């Protein structure tokens, strides 16, 4: 028996397989979650996992979860991230997930979701913001963080991504150092995530999941902003898919 968790995010799609087989992979979601789903299905088949077989149970999550028409279960990314997060940080902790288009704060207590928060109607504290700003600065996301780690952050005060981009453009116009602008961008995202997180009492143990989860510079900035030690996680990008795979197994029992 194999348990497959598929997390179709707005930017990246993550797959975790547990059971007799044990592997994971990630691919860009692209413009159509439907096509991504087909690619995933083929990729799984090439590794010996037939999603339509009774021997393989599939749980889909993420904003594109409904596109996974071969899933046995569909569960929201909040529950899946909580389950995956619990696997990574234990029964009492908080998971901060900075995703491509939303940011979630999930509080886990005694192994159960106790409460959660999501950003609403705004992409300011998400990966999307970083993506737009790195494009504007003409660098990749990795390069943005490298630059940021050597810069002195400029202040980016706008709450709106579009206005913040204008702020960045005016800094560029003023001839500010790219490092300083990059540092300002990262700090701005961390500040917005911290703002959301501070609406709840965070426990001692806090981990970061999502695409930035293994970025120690970002967790450092986030720790400073939240006043908690936010731990990076090597497998954090897969937290949602991992949770989905675990839930597929638990539902089966």
């Amino acid at each position, binding site marked *: 028996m194999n348990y497959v968790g598929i997390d179709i995010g707005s930017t990246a799609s993550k797959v975790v397989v547990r059971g007799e087989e044990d592997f994971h992979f990630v691919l860009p979601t692209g413009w159509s979650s439907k096509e991504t789903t087909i690619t995933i299905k083929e990729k799984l088949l090439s590794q010996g996992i037939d999603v339509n077989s009774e021997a393989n149970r599939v749980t889909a999550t993420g904003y594109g979860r409904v596109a996974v028409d071969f899933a046995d279960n569909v*569960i*929201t990314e*909040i*529950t899946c991230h909580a389950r995956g997060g619990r696997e990574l940080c234990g029964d009492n902790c908080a998971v901060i997930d900075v995703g491509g288009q939303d940011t979630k704060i999930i509080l886990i207590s005694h192994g159960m979701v106790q409460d959660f928060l*999501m950003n609403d*109607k705004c992409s300011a504290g998400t990966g999307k913001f970083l993506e737009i700003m790195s494009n504007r600065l003409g660098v990749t996301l990795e390069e943005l963080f490298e630059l940021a780690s050597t810069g002195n952050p400029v202040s980016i005060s706008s709450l709106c991504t579009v206005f913040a981009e204008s702020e960045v453009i005016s800094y560029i116009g003023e001839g500010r150092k790219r490092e300083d602008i990059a540092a300002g961008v990262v700090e701005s995202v961390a500040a917005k995530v911290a703002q959301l997180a501070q609406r709840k009492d965070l426990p001692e143990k806090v981990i970061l999941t999502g695409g930035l989860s293994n970025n120690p510079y970002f967790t450092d900035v986030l720790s400073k902003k939240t006043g908690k030690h936010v731990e990076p996680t090597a497998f954090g990008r897969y937290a949602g898919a991992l949770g989905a795979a675990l839930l597929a197994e638990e539902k089966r029992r």
Partner: protein
Amino acid sequence: MEIIKELPEVFEEFAEQRKKSFLSMKELKDKGVPVVGAYCTYFPQEIAMAMGAATVSLCSTSDETIPDAEKDLPKNLCPLIKSSYGFAITDKCPFFYFSDLVVGETTCDGKKKMYEYMGQFKDVFLMELPNTQKEEALKLWRSEIIRFKEYLEEKFDVEITEEQIRDAIKINNAGRRSLKALYETMKNDPVPIKGQDLFKVLYGSTFKFDRSQIPEEVDALVAKINKEYAEGKMEEKKPRILITGCPIGGATEKIIRAVEDNGGIAVTFESCSGAKSIDKLVDEDNPDVYDALARRYLDIGCSVMAPNPNRLELLGRLIDEYKVDGVVEMLLQACHTYAVESKGIRDFVTGEKHIPYIAVETDYSQADIGQLNTRITAFLEML
């Protein structure tokens, strides 16, 4: 005074359903029945009913006229207020258009200031609603009810007797008893019907011009539900959700759907079209009809009251009686009183009742349905 009988100039531009509503209102007006429109459950309907007027709820529930309203009102204002004002200035609401008088109350800041502008193109009677429920407040509210009665007498050149008011109280109490019996069928586990279907009946009852017809129609429905339930017709067993917060209707029924499309069932509504406005009766034995009305209406547990103990009392009772598994609160964007009160409700629900609570903020657009579904589904998965 001459009551409004002509159709508005924009009538021909309307879609079929709206034309129908206009025509049925016109029919009523042609019979010479005056119409009193109101926006709030604090409105003492019985006074208007006592003079033979039809009463109708005017709270607007679609975003259609919000752009029109935003010419005069700020964008960052509650959608209910903007939409209501928008329908009023555009002549698009048959009920507002044919209302000979509109009654407002000094409930929240947004509404009471909006009424000032509405008064420039409509006869608006503003009742001063106290924001506490103390004895002094009761005195003021009683005198406001009498002032309203006197205003009606003068405007329509009629006399409203205590006997007529007493009769209206009896009619409305009978309607409340029937509606309560209807929503109490949801105490069954599993429930007999979907919460969205129950809501349609409750909400629809606020558009019944002749309130004396409510018991007969609703009692028949209750009898049908009970009979079918006994025969085994019922909904699946699902997590039982109580919905509380700002008024629901039209566009915001998306909250009920989000609960019921994603694995939950809305068993009871602690909001304006639900228990909040139906739960309590007017005391028929009180020799002072004005005192009886004042007490009944001032007791409503709306967040405009500070403090607001009656909301917690009702909420607690509903949670117990309906075996509620989780509470979903709907907050309309920029509704300060409900948004601020949300912490108190969360503390009460999670701390004293030990069940989960979630608050979702929304408006009259359909743009946030994906997000709402994710949040509410995740909440249901928690249960």
